[in-house]
C-alpha cells in the first residue's frame, strides 16, 4: 500500500525521520478523510429526524492508528521488505529465509500442545475462566491449529509444490469425511459430528466451491479468450431460475434440468455475444454489465413468472440420482433406505460432492479444451486478434464459443445454487457477485486454474471466517457486529492483494504443448486481450 510521496528527496533522511514525516502526512490525510464520517454519525432520534452523534474519541483513535501504522511501515516494514525481497517471484509466497524463521519446531510443538489442551478442555472453559476469556481462547485455538497446519505444509512444501493438483483434489475429496470424523471424535458421537459438520461443509466447502466453479467458468471468457465480461452473474441467474422455475412448476428432476440449465445459459451467451462481440475492450465490458443488470431487472419486474423480488421458493431438492431422496418424509428417504439415523448433514455432504464434481468437470473440460485447437485459438485471440485472422481463424465463432462455454458452466453452477438454497431471488445476482467472481479470476492469475482456486479459498473463505470473530464483541462491546466489517475488509483485501501481486497468485502460464520440455511462460509475455 506504500506510495512514497517523496522518496527521491529523502535519500539522505534516515528511515525513522522519513517515517515520522510520512506519519504526519498520513495523519493529516486520514483526519481529513474521517472527520465527517467517523467523528460524526448521523442517527435518527425518536421522532425520526436525523441528528448528529459525536465520536471524537474514535476519530482520534483511528487517526493515531493510521499514523502509527504508516510510521512502522515506513520505518521498519519497508526496509525489511526491501531486504527480504518479500515477494518471491516464482511462488509468490514467503521466501524461504523469512518462512524458515517463522516456522520453527519449538513453536510448532507449542502450537500443537496448546491446540490439544484447548480442545480437550473446550467444554469446561467457559465455566473455568468466564465466557469472555473463553472466546479469546477459542480464537487462540484456531490460530494455533492454523499455525500448526501451516508448519506441516511448510515442511512438506517441496512435495506439495510438485504434486499440488493431485493433493488438492485428494484434500477436497476427503474434506467432508475428515470434518465428520474429527468432529465426531470431538463431540464423542457420530450424530454430533454430522450436525457439527454442517457449517464446515456447507458454509465453507460448498460456498467456496461454488465460487471456484464460477470463477473457472469465467476464466474461459476472461482468462483465456481475454474478453472482459462484467455480467457473468447473468448466466448464473439464468441457470438458477431455469432450475427453480422448471423444477418447481413441472417437477422435473435436477438431473434433467442441470444440462438444460447449462444449455439455456449457453444459448443466452450466444444471444448476447452475437451482437456485441465486435465491440472492443471497455465497450464490451459495459454492455455485458448492462446485460447482467437487464436480466436482474427483468427477474425483479416480471412478477407473473419470477415472483419478483420475493423470489421462487420451494425448489425441489436434488435426489440421489433418482434412487434416494433427502426429504425425511419421503418413503425413499436416504435414512430409511440405508437404515441410518436421520440427519440433514447427508444432503449437505452429497451437495458438497456434487459441486466438487461439477467444479472438477469445469476444470477437466478447461484443461482439455486448452489443448484443443479451439482453446489455443482462445488464447491466441487474447494475444493478438489480427494475427488470428491472418491465420484463418474465424474470430467471431471463436469468441462465441468462449462466451457460450463460460456461460454454460455459469448455468450449471446456477442450477446447483438453486437446488442448494431451495430458494432464489434476484438479490443473489447483483453486480457485486460478478465483480467478486471477476476479482477471483484476476487475483488468481488469469488462466491459471490452481491460482483461481487458491484465490477463491482466500477471498471467500477469508470473508466467511470473519463471521467467526464473535469474541471481538467482548472487546468492542455488545453493539459491535464483526459481520458488518466483512465486506469492508473484503474490498480492502482486494486492493491490497492486487497491489501486492498485480498478475495474480499464479502469474505464469502453462504451455499447452511442448517439444522437449514443459516450461512455464512468465506473465510478462502474456497479454490480457483487448476485447
Amino acid at each position, binding site marked *: 500500500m506504500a506510495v512514497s510521496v517523496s522518496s527521491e528527496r529523502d535519500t539522505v533522511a534516515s528511515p525513522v525521520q522519513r517515517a515520522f514525516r510520512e506519519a504526519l502526512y498520513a495523519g493529516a490525510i486520514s483526519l481529513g478523510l474521517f472527520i465527517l464520517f467517523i467523528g460524526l454519525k448521523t442517527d435518527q432520534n425518536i421522532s425520526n429526524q436525523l441528528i448528529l452523534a459525536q465520536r471524537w474519541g474514535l476519530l482520534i483513535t483511528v487517526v493515531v492508528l493510521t499514523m502509527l501504522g504508516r510510521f512502522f511501515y515506513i520505518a521498519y516494514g519497508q526496509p525489511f521488505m526491501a531486504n527480504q525481497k518479500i515477494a518471491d517471484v516464482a511462488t509468490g509466497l514467503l521466501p524461504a529465509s523469512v518462512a524458515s524463521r517463522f516456522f520453527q519446531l519449538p513453536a510448532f510443538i507449542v502450537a500443537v500442545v496448546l491446540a490439544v489442551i484447548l480442545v480437550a478442555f473446550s467444554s469446561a472453559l467457559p465455566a473455568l475462566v468466564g465466557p469472555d476469556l473463553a472466546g479469546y481462547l477459542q480464537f487462540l485455538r484456531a490460530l494455533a491449529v492454523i499455525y500448526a497446519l501451516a508448519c506441516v505444509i511448510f515442511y512438506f512444501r517441496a512435495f506439495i509444490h510438485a504434486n499440488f493438483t493431485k493433493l488438492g483434489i485428494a484434500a477436497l475429496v476427503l474434506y467432508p469425511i475428515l470434518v465428520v470424523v474429527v468432529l465426531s471424535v470431538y463431540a464423542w458421537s457420530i450424530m454430533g459430528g454430522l450436525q457439527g459438520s454442517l457449517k464446515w461443509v456447507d458454509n465453507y466447502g460448498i460456498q467456496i466451491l461454488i465460487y471456484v466453479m464460477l470463477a473457472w467458468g469465467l476464466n474461459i471468457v476472461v482468462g483465456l479468450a481475454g474478453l472482459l465480461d462484467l455480467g457473468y452473474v447473468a448466466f448464473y441467474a439464468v441457470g438458477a431460475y431455469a432450475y427453480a422455475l422448471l423444477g418447481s412448476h413441472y417437477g422435473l428432476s435436477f438431473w434433467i434440468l442441470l444440462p438444460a440449465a447449462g444449455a439455456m445459459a449457453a444459448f443466452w451467451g450466444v444471444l448476447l455475444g452475437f451482437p456485441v462481440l465486435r465491440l472492443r475492450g471497455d465497450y464490451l465490458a459495459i454492455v455485458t454489465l448492462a446485460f447482467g443488470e437487464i436480466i436482474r431487472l427483468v427477474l425483479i419486474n416480471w412478477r407473473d413468472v419470477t415472483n419478483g423480488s420475493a423470489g421462487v421458493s420451494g425448489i425441489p431438492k436434488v435426489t440421489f440420482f433418482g434412487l434416494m431422496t433427502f426429504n425425511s418424509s419421503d418413503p425413499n428417504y436416504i435414512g430409511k433406505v440405508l437404515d441410518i439415523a436421520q440427519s440433514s448433514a447427508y444432503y449437505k455432504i452429497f451437495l458438497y460432492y456434487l459441486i466438487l464434481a461439477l467444479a472438477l468437470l469445469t476444470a477437466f473440460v478447461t484443461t482439455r479444451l486448452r489443448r484443443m*485447437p479451439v482453446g489455443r485459438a482462445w488464447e491466441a485471440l487474447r494475444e493478438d486478434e489480427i494475427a488470428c485472422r491472418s491465420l*484463418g481463424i474465424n474470430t467471431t465463432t471463436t469468441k462465441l464459443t468462449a462466451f457460450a462455454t463460460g456461460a454454460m458452466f455459469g448455468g450449471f453452477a446456477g442450477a446447483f445454487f438453486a437446488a442448494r438454497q431451495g430458494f432464489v431471488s434476484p438479490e443473489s445476482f447483483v453486480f457485486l457477485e460478478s465483480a467478486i467472481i471477476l476479482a477471483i479470476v484476476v487475483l488468481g492469475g488469469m488462466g491459471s486454474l490452481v491460482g483461481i482456486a487458491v484465490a477463491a479459498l482466500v477471498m471467500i473463505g477469508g470473508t466467511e471466517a470473519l463471521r467467526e470473530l464473535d469474541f471481538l464483541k467482548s472487546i468492542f462491546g455488545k453493539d459491535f457486529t464483526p459481520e458488518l466489517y466483512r465486506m469492508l475488509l473484503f474490498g480492502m483485501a482486494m486492493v491490497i492483494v492486487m497491489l501486492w501481486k498485480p498478475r495474480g497468485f499464479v502469474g505464469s502460464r502453462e504451455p499447452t504443448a511442448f517439444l522437449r520440455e514443459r516450461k512455464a511462460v512468465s506473465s510478462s509475455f502474456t497479454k490480457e486481450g483487448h476485447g
Partner: protein
Amino acid sequence: MSANSMKDAILQVEHLSMKFGGLVAIGDLSFQAKRGEITALIGPNGAGKTTVFNCITGFYKPSEGMITLNGADGSSFLLERLPNHEIPARAKVARTFQNIRLFSGMTLLENLLVAQHNKLMKASGYTILGLFGIGGYRRASAESVELAKHWLEKADLVDRADDPAGDLPYGAQRRLEIARAMCTGPELLCLDEPAAGLNPKESAALNSLLMDIKSSTSILLIEHDMSVVMQISDHVVVLEYGRKISDGSPQSVRTDPRVIAAYLGVDDEEVETVLTEVGDEDVIEQLDIGPDSAHGPGTSSSYLAGPVSDTIGHSEGERVTVSKGASKAAQFDARVSAAPRKPTERATAKPAGKSPTSKPRGGRK
C-alpha cells in the same frame, strides 16, 4: 494479357483502388505475381504497399478492382469478396506483418500450432469429438507438431521451441512469423518488410529461408532493403503514391529512370522551371502550399487535424495535382516531355535531391 500468362499467374491484381475518405491510397493498380516466383513490391514510404497487402489479405475492402487468386488445383478466388479469415483458410494466402504480430505469451510451438487451427478443428470434429477422445485428433495433433517442427528447423528455431515467442530476439521473431505463416500451408506468402531491422547476418539467413520457401510457395514481398530485393526476387513492381511506376525484372527496374527519380528525387526548383515551361500552374500553386499534409486515416484522430486534402490523380494522361513532395516520377515524366534531356544523368548527378517526405498512409502503424 495472353492466356498463357493468365495460367501461371498465381495472383492477379486488376485496377485496384483504395480510397480512405478523400485520400487515394492506391489508384488503379494492376500487376500480377507468377507461380513459383518471388515478386517484390517496392516503393518509397507511403507508396501504398502495405495497403495493397491489406487489400489482398482482406483486412481492407478495396474501393474498386479485382484481386484474383488462382490455386494450383485450378480453383480461383476473388479475394476482395472473401471474408478476412477465409482468405488464409480457403484461398491459402498467408501473410506476415510489418510490426511483428506474434502470440508473445505462447511458446514457439504453440504459435505454429495455432496456425494449423482449421486443419486441427476438422480433425477434432469441431472440438466435440476430440473432447471425448474420439476420432483422429490425436494423430492429427501429432502430425501438426511434426509440421511445426519441420518449419522450426527451417527457421533455425527448434532449440527454442518451448520458449515464449515474446522472449525471442527481433530477427528470430521475424523468422518465426514466417514459419507460422508457412504452417497454414499457403500457396502465396505475403511478407511485409521481412528484412526490416535485421543485421546483415540475419538478413542472409532470411534470404536462404525465402529461397527455400520459394521452391514450394510463391512469395509476394514488400521490402526496403534493396540487397534483399535484388538478390532474391524474380520480378519487381514499383509503386509510388499508389500508382505503379515500373514493373519488370530487378535489372530493368534498377535502371528505370522513373524509379530512380522516385527514390532519389529531383530538385524542386528544377521541377518548377520545367513545369513553368509546360505551363502547369496548378502544380506550381500546389508546390507552394505549406507542409505536407501527411495524415493517414489512422492518425487523424485529433480534432486539430484538418481535412485530408491531397488527392492523387491516377488516370493516365490526367493532370497530377498533389502537394509538395509528391510523385517524383510524375514530375520526371512532365520534365521529360517538356524538355527532352538526358534524364539518368541528371538524376544520378544530383543524389542529394529531396526524397519524398510524406508519411506512410494506408493504416500503417
